[in-house]
C-alpha cells in the first residue's frame, strides 16, 4: 500500500515536471517529436533509477559515517556524471541496439536536474533503499507521461496558426501551463 501511494503521488499528484519544475530543459528541448521523447524518457528512467541507488549507498555508507554530509551536492553530481559516462561505455559494448536508441540522450542527462533532484529528495524524505527505487521509477514514469502528452500536443501545435509573437517557446509554455492545470485535478488523490 505504501508503495502504491509513493507511485501515485510521484506520477500524478506531485508530477516531477508539471508540479515540481524539475527537468524542464529536456522537457522543452526534446519534446517536439513523440519519437525523441520516448528515447529521452527511457534514458531518464534508466539513469534516474541507477543514480538513486548509487547515491543512496554513498550517502548512507560514506557521507554519514564520515560526518561530511555537507559534501552531498559535490559528491552526487560527480557520481551522476561519471555514472552517465560509464553507462554509455557499457551500453556501447553490451547492447549496441539500446545504445543506438538512447545514445544521444545520455550525455544530456548529466545536466537534467530531475536526476539530481530525485536523488536529493530520496534523502530528504528519508526513504529506505527499496522505497527510493520505487520513488525513482515512479518519478521517471511521471516524467515520461508529462513529456509524451506534451510532445503529442506540440506535434499538432506545429500545424496551427499561432500569432507570430507566440510561435515556438511561448505557445509551448502556455500549453504546458494548461497541462499543469489539468494535473492539478489530481491534487488530494493521496
Amino acid at each position: 500500500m505504501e508503495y502504491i501511494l509513493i507511485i501515485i503521488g510521484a506520477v500524478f499528484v506531485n508530477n516531477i515536471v508539471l508540479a515540481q519544475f524539475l527537468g524542464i530543459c529536456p522537457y522543452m528541448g526534446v519534446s517536439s517529436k513523440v519519437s525523441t521523447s520516448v528515447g529521452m524518457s527511457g534514458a531518464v528512467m534508466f539513469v534516474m533509477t541507477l543514480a538513486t541507488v548509487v547515491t543512496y549507498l554513498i550517502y548512507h555508507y560514506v557521507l554519514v559515517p564520515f560526518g561530511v554530509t555537507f559534501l552531498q551536492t559535490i559528491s552526487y553530481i560527480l557520481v551522476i556524471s561519471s555514472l552517465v559516462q560509464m553507462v554509455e561505455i557499457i551500453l556501447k559494448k553490451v547492447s549496441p541496439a539500446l545504445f543506438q536508441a538512447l545514445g544521444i540522450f545520455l550525455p544530456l542527462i548529466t545536466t537534467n536536474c530531475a536526476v539530481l533532484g530525485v536523488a536529493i529528495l530520496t534523502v530528504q524524505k528519508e526513504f529506505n533503499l527499496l522505497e527510493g527505487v520505487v520513488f525513482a521509477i515512479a518519478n521517471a514514469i511521471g516524467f515520461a507521461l508529462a513529456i509524451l502528452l506534451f510532445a503529442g500536443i506540440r506535434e499538432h501545435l506545429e500545424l496551427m496558426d499561432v500569432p507570430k509573437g507566440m510561435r515556438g517557446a511561448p505557445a509551448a509554455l502556455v500549453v504546458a501551463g494548461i497541462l499543469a492545470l489539468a494535473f492539478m485535478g489530481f491534487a488530494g488523490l493521496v
Partner: protein
Amino acid sequence: MSQLKNFTKGFIKENPVFVLLLGLCPALGVTTSAFNGLGMGLATTFVLVSSNVVVSLIKSQIPDKVRIPSFIVIIASFVTIVQLVMEAFMPDLFAALGLFIPLIVVNCLVLGRAEAFASKKNLVSSLVDGLGMGLGFAFALTLLGAVRELLGSGAIFGFSFIQGDGMLVFVLAPGAFIGLGYLIALTNMIKKNE
C-alpha cells in the same frame, strides 16, 4: 565587443531565461514571489561570477578531455558555499528556495557560460560576462516573480496594491508556465521592434 556591451547583453538581447531559455527549472520553480525570484537570481549570480572567474584563471591548466567534470566540481564547490551561508544567515529564504539551491549545480546557464565563454576569454571579460548574465537572470526571475505575485495576490515584494483575492492559479504551478510564456512573447516583440 566593449565591456559595456558585454555587460548589458544579458538583460534583453541575450537574456538567459527569456531568449536563451536556459535555467528554466529555477525560473519556474521559485518565482512564487518577487523576493524569492530575486534571492535565487542573486545566489545564481554569485555562483556564475565565481565559477567564471576560476574557470578563466585555470583554463590553461585543465586538460581538454576532463574539462566538463572539472567545471562541474568548481561550480559545485561554490554552490555548497552558497548553500551553507544561506542556511546560516537567511534560513527563511533557504527554506523557500529549498531543493533549487543545490540544483544550481545543474543549471545549464552556469555550465554553459563556463564552457562557451570563460574557458576561452580572459579574466576581466569572464567576470563582466558572469555579472551581466547573472544579473540578467536575476532580472528575469524578479520580473516573473513580480508578475505572478501581482496577479496571484495583488502585491509586489509583499507590498499589496490591490485589495481582495487574486488569481490563485498564478501562484500555483500552471501560472509559472503561462506567465513565462507571455513574458517570452513580450520579449520577442521588444526585440523585433529594436
